[in-house]
């Protein structure tokens, strides 16, 4: 008997020693595992930081752009046009517009480049030699059209000298910001030696300064004048699409969630709808683009590149998100609430609309905002319905050709003037991310705010 007891104690002792001997190794593994987890988190957080840091550092310079302040003389010797036509009595609207167009064409034919050139020469130090092309290369090409527009709007400017802020060309901006390697030989620089020297001189004299690039938000895209390209058209296009998504996806999504969760009898058809919605949520976005191209554009004959098509495609994409979120919100409502309503005689419809739905309102609102934010950043389906086309106007209606914010980013990243457009694309991305963060913050704010009240 005693022998066995000794044996057991011996065995236990040996096992204890064995465990103790392996402890240090096991603790080492424990520490390594823990360190691995921490590393993973550090990597993930580091990636977020790198991504945002890189966008901010690349994009921030694009918000400040080289701008010239020049004294522009509307020289009557250069602008040789008659005064604008007045509308005669009894003249039809179409005839008056035609006459006005003839006059505007004459104004356009005036040598506006010469006026810009003179303005640049006047700003240069006395005796500075620069040829015509060199002088014009300093200023963005669309500024001469702006001078023309100023004159058309106010023909009284003829003969006057006005100080005008003009955007420097993209190449000048690159040179002054150092986005282009300043040590490159002349043959590989975009600007001539004279223009570069003049740009540096004007910057030193304060005639060129870096001003906030408001036109980034107010201008439309432009190919001939890259420095003046802006996001206005893309903003309006995206706005139309988001309005369509809000107007269609939210009510339809909430309605179908209510039906599936509250009314649908449990049988094969509703099971099918349920499986279907879960699968739709995971269908790649580009397939929705194919659907848009085949159904909305080819079959229904809706216009290419129009926000209405984009809005419809994004609506179909957002629907599953909203349905799934609304359903889980409805499911979270306690059964007692329903039973109380039913017990005092409310019909099932009244129970849902008067009692259950109001409680889920914050969650539905949040999911709607998040769904819209997701739709705002979606790019791939837009490429297939032609929204990556170059459009230089602000769409007046959702049926007009238009761009959208993510499509504009796609277009800009592919621009040949890499040095200039890399910053511009990053700036556009900053704007897009800013919008999305604002929307998500709004969702979080509303959720915490409204949930407290319920």
């Amino acid at each position, binding site marked *: 008997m005693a022998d066995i007891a000794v044996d057991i104690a011996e065995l236990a002792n040996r096992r204890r020693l064995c465990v103790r001997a392996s402890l240090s190794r096991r603790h080492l593994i424990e520490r390594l595992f823990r360190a691995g987890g921490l590393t993973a988190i550090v990597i993930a957080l580091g990636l977020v930081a790198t*991504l945002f840091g890189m966008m901010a550092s690349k994009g921030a310079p694009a918000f400040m752009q080289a701008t010239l302040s020049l004294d522009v003389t509307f020289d009557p010797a250069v602008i040789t046009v008659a005064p604008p036509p007045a509308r005669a009595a009894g003249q039809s609207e179409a005839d008056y517009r035609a006459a006005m167009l003839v006059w505007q064409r004459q104004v356009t034919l005036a040598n506006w480049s010469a006026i810009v050139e003179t303005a640049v020469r006047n700003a240069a130090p006395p005796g500075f030699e620069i040829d015509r092309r060199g002088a014009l290369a300093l200023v963005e090409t669309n500024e001469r059209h702006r001078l023309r527009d100023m004159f058309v709007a106010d023909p009284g400017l003829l003969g006057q000298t006005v100080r005008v802020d003009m955007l420097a060309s993209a190449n000048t901006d690159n040179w002054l910001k150092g986005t282009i390697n300043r040590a490159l030989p002349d043959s590989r620089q975009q600007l001539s030696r004279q223009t570069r020297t003049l740009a540096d001189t004007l910057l030193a004299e304060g005639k060129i300064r870096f001003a906030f690039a408001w036109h980034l938000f107010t201008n439309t895209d432009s190919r001939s004048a890259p420095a003046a390209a802006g996001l206005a058209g893309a903003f309006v296009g995206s706005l139309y699409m988001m309005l369509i998504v809000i107007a269609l996806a939210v009510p339809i999504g909430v309605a179908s969630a209510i039906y599936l969760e509250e009314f649908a009898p449990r049988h094969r058809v509703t099971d099918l709808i349920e499986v279907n919605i879960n699968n739709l949520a995971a269908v*790649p976005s580009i397939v929705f683009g194919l659907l848009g191209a085949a159904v909305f554009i080819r079959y229904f004959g809706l216009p290419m590149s129009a926000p209405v098509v984009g809005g419809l495609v994004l609506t179909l994409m957002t629907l599953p998100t909203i349905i799934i979120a609304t359903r889980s919100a409805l499911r979270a409502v306690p059964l007692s609430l329903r039973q109380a309503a039913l017990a005092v005689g409310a019909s099932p419809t009244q129970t849902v609309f008067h009692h259950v739905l109001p409680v889920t309102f914050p969650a539905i609102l949040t999911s709607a905002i998040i769904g819209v934010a997701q739709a*705002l950043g979606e790019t791939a389906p837009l490429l297939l319905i032609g929204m990556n086309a170059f459009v230089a106007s602000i769409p007046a209606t959702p049926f007009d050709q238009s761009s959208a914010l993510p499509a504009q980013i796609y277009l800009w990243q592919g621009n040949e003037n890499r040095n200039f457009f890399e910053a511009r694309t*990053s700036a556009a991305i900053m704007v897009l991310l800013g919008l999305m963060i604002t929307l998500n913050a709004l969702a979080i704010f509303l959720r915490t705010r409204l949930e407290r009240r319920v």
Partner: protein
Amino acid sequence: MIPLLVAALLLVLMGIAYTQGFSRSRAIAATGVRLHSRPAYHGSLVAIRCLLPALLVLGLWVLFGPGMTRAFIVAQLPPDVAALDEPAFLTAVRRIEAIASGFGVAGQVQPYEAAAGEAVRRFHTFALLVVMAAAAGVGILGLLAALRRISPTLRARNKVESVVRVLLLACSALAILTTVGIVVSLFNEAFRFFSFVAPADFFFGTVWNPGFATTGTAAIGEYGLLPLLWGTVMIAIIAMLVAIPVGLMTAIYLSQYASARLRNVAKPIVEVLAGIPTIVYGFFALVTVGPFLSDTGAAIGLDIRATSALTAGLVMGIMIIPFVSSLSDDIMRQVPLSLRDGSLGLGATESETIRRVLLPAALPGIVGALLLAISRAIGETMIVVLAAGNSPVLRFNPAEPVSTITVTIVNQLTGDADFAGPQSLVAFALGLTLFVMTLLLNMVALYIVRRFREQYE
């Protein structure tokens, strides 16, 4: 202007109908009779019965109106103009429409044009008045009929509720309709593609070289799917190699080790990665990750291209990290706490508990989650469009540029409205392949996840 008028008409009709039904039923109730439904339901029912016929009339006009206007304009044209060839005829019609709209046309106005323009203008006004009057008329008829049916026993609430229920059902049927639309349009166009190219050549071809058909619709070039499929799979594998360890370890650390404070800060930040638009990732890959990889490769003597499968896969992996981590977090949380406590109670260390108890128990669910992540990687477009290099050649070196199914869809379809030739139709065959692949992955994944949930419920 006209839509506003129509909307105003409908709103007015609806308002009148609702208030009429409401006050009529209230008047009945005031006599002391018990109504089956409350007055608001009677009002709604009258409004529905008033609006439906009005909407029907307006819908008919939307369907047939433009054709009637067109026929009227053509009837106004003198015979010599009506006999003109197609473009000149269209110009004449457009000029008359411009005169009728009051904008006028530049240049001389022919006498017949002025007369026709005037007639068309009168026709427009007349038609508008007639349609509005008809809509209002049938609306009021519906209203009167509905008002007469108001009685204490009318089950107005049940009727309104069944209308609401039908509307709700119609909304949820839209999801089915979307799927049907996707399947029908993909199959339809893909079959047209297969009339140019044999399915076997498409699915088993190893060369992707679609020529440009300048004339006719002849199939020029070769449409082999395999290079694209391999590119897609290779990038997805690289992405998973990045996302699985980082995502899984993040989930484990955050759910098992991290203090509440760290979790509350780190979890939302990691999830920010999921909300970033993919175009942003694409640009990040193109200007930061690609050059970085290429420089690193050059420093250690490897030839890595800036746009390659490696670049795209790496960035796609970053995109999927939050997807993997939040899904596996969810799933590990469903493993009963008793399993964990039992293991800890026997003296296992935390990492041993996680590796030998928690992970095996959660494995089916995690596999399902990973399948979902893979299907997302396969369908991802913008990152690969920008950073994979678009080179549809069968290559096995991840440092070389590749192309994927999604990239090719974008390349073949952008800027093309009438998909007549195989060059653009192939996008639908590719889309169909992609759709089927992701659908299968999702169904398997959802099945596994559901089975897993049931296991612990």
